[in-house]
């Protein structure tokens, strides 16, 4: 087995799982990406709103003193502004006064230690949200507002450490991963189950076949789904035709052995009875002739197949042409004219060797007996199988014909209908065997040409 050496193709299940796995990964990956994006945007815009509300919170809680400077509120809008380790930072740039000290910048207690990039001045009315911005080892989201507050020009920056949002995002991502992973695993399991369920009939066919191989069963039985029923039917046909073949081979072998026994017995008797000389010679000659015929007949049978299961349709005319060209050489002296009336749609479903054998034997017979004319007609018949039309072949001659009471005798296997013209007399027996193998029928009737008409029908109920 050369195939065993090369890599075996992937199983159907592995293929389906592989393809579905890729699709699933792509789908879940994209879903995760989209959800991640969406939630980040949501978190960011929520943060923006919160930071802006802190900006306005500072503005609303503050005052402008008589020195026309901005006075920061006692406590910020969130406690985290007022703790030195807080992660919310506020910076106000502009003329400010803290505890009577004038300055150009105010920082919330949380922002005192950190060197924050919150030094830009914005024009009044300018609103900005940035982030995450990385500066001196800290990542920030920054909401800024430029404003003229009671005639004092101020720029207010409120920032939050990005780690907070990142933490939220991380929590969300972990949840997402757990859920999507679970979903993927669930889908894969479901897919596996579906696959096993849908491939079960295939496994059933294969175990049934194994049983047929082992001889536990005759054929594939049981209900198969629609997609497999035709395959099962074909396999059954194949099994049947193989079985017919096998029994044919057995029969042929036993026929051969049995039929050779008779002439052998006759010769042995003659030898035992002490006959000698001319009489013995004649007996031996006669029996050898008989054995010749038997062997020739069985050999011809061996050459025929009768396979119909996977036969391709073959046209009649080219093969008939070949046979007639051959016969016209052999029977050149007979000056027989062979005409064809072959319908263009006529097809033989079988082996070309078998068609040649049918045409050859019947046409040769016709050439032997004809006075001057042989006619071969072929036409399709509506058959038992709509995809496979039947076939009718008629071979006629204008010879003496066959008397009605001789026909039955002629159709008996091995009877030589032709004593006058030399030949093996086994042609018709082979034709009958072939017709039987193809489940066809043979009729012999008088022809309108004057001689005999052999009518063969195939593929008809």
């Amino acid at each position, binding site marked *: 087995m050369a195939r065993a050496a090369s890599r075996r193709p992937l199983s159907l299940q592995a293929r389906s799982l592989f393809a579905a796995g890729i699709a699933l990964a792509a789908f879940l990956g994209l879903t995760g990406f989209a959800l991640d994006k969406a939630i980040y945007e949501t978190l960011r815009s929520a943060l923006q709103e919160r930071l802006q509300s802190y900006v306005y919170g500072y503005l609303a809680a503050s005052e402008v003193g008589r020195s026309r400077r901005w006075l920061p509120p006692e406590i910020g809008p969130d406690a985290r502004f007022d703790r030195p380790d807080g992660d919310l930072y506020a910076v106000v740039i502009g003329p400010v006064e803290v505890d009577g000290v004038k300055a150009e910048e105010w920082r919330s207690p949380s922002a005192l230690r950190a060197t924050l990039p919150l030094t830009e001045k914005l024009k009044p009315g300018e609103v900005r949200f940035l982030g995450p911005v990385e500066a001196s080892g800290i990542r920030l989201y920054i909401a800024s507002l430029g404003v003229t507050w009671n005639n004092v020009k101020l720029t207010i920056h409120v920032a939050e450490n990005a780690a907070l949002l990142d933490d939220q995002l991380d929590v969300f991502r972990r949840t997402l991963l757990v859920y999507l992973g679970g979903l993927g695993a669930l889908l894969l399991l479901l897919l596996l189950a579906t696959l096993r369920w849908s491939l079960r009939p295939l496994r059933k066919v294969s175990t049934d076949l194994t049983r047929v191989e082992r001889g536990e069963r005759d054929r594939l039985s049981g209900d198969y789904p629609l997609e497999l029923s035709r395959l099962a039917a074909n396999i059954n046909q194949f099994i049947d035709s193989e079985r017919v073949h096998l029994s044919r081979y057995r029969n042929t072998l036993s026929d051969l052995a049995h039929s050779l026994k008779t002439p052998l017995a006759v010769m042995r008797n003659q030898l035992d009875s002490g006959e000698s000389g001319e009489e013995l010679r004649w007996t031996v000659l006669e029996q050898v002739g008989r054995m*010749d015929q038997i062997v*020739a007949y069985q*050999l*011809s049978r061996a*050459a025929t197949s009768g396979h119909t299961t996977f036969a391709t349709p073959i046209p009649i005319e080219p*093969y008939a042409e*070949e*046979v007639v*060209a*051959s016969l016209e*050489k*052999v029977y*050149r*002296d007979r*000056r027989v004219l062979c005409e064809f009336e072959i319908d263009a749609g006529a097809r033989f479903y079988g082996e*070309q*060797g078998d068609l*040649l*054998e049918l*045409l*050859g*034997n019947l046409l040769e017979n016709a050439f032997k007996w004809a006075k001057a004319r042989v006619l071969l007609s072929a036409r399709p018949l509506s058959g038992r199988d709509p995809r496979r039309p039947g076939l009718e072949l008629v071979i006629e001659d204008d010879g003496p014909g066959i008397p009605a009471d001789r026909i039955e005798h002629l159709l008996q296997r091995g009877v030589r209908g032709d004593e006058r013209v*030399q030949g*093996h007399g086994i042609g018709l027996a082979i034709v009958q065997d072939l017709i039987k193998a193809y489940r066809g029928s043979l009729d012999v009737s008088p022809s309108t040409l004057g001689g005999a008409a052999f009518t063969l029908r195939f593929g008809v109920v």
Partner: protein
Amino acid sequence: MRILLVEDEAPLRETLAARLKREGFAVDTAADGEEGLYLGREVPFDVAIIDLGLPKMSGMELIQELRAVGQRFPIMILTARPSWQDKVSGFKQGADDYLVKPFHVEELLARINALVRRASGWTKPTLECGPIVLDTTAQTVKVNGSAADLTSYEYKVLEYLMLHAGELVSKADLTEHIYQQDFDRDSNVLEVFIGRLRRKLDPENALKPIETVRGRGYRFAIARSDNGAEKAEAARPAE
């Protein structure tokens, strides 16, 4: 008549060759396809008998090769497998007749005679030239309705001349096609046969059927009675 016999089974080849020689044929034998092809190319045979299952080159290939190099002599196929597929492909390659083994030598002889006769344009098994009628089936000769008593060799010489009636047949042709190769060609046996034939066919010396063309050979001088119309038919190319 000179025959090429290509058969690999020695017993069959030898008995068949011996029988054919007894029947007055000149026989060349070959045991395989290549030898058969060599002989078939070099020697002007009247007919070839070729077994299909041959070593070195199959019978089918041999026939194809012989036809390809332009040899037109009739070919008889011998085969042990009587399937029509084989027969049809044999005829397609250029064979003219077939015989299934085992066969009766008489049938083979009858068929070979018919092949040779057809190849020279005679359609009927009796060759008629005026009052001389030669029956190739019974191997008898009648002159004006009464049987002429010929020996086997005399018959063969007359048959060859009548098959080629009207044509010049050289002495070499006659000796090659009728006698064995090792026959002494310089002897005057042929002249003796021709002389006897003339006396037996034409004791009154009125018909003068066999003409001597001095230094070149002989010609059967009486025209064919079937006017040779079949010549064209016989020369039809092989399908």
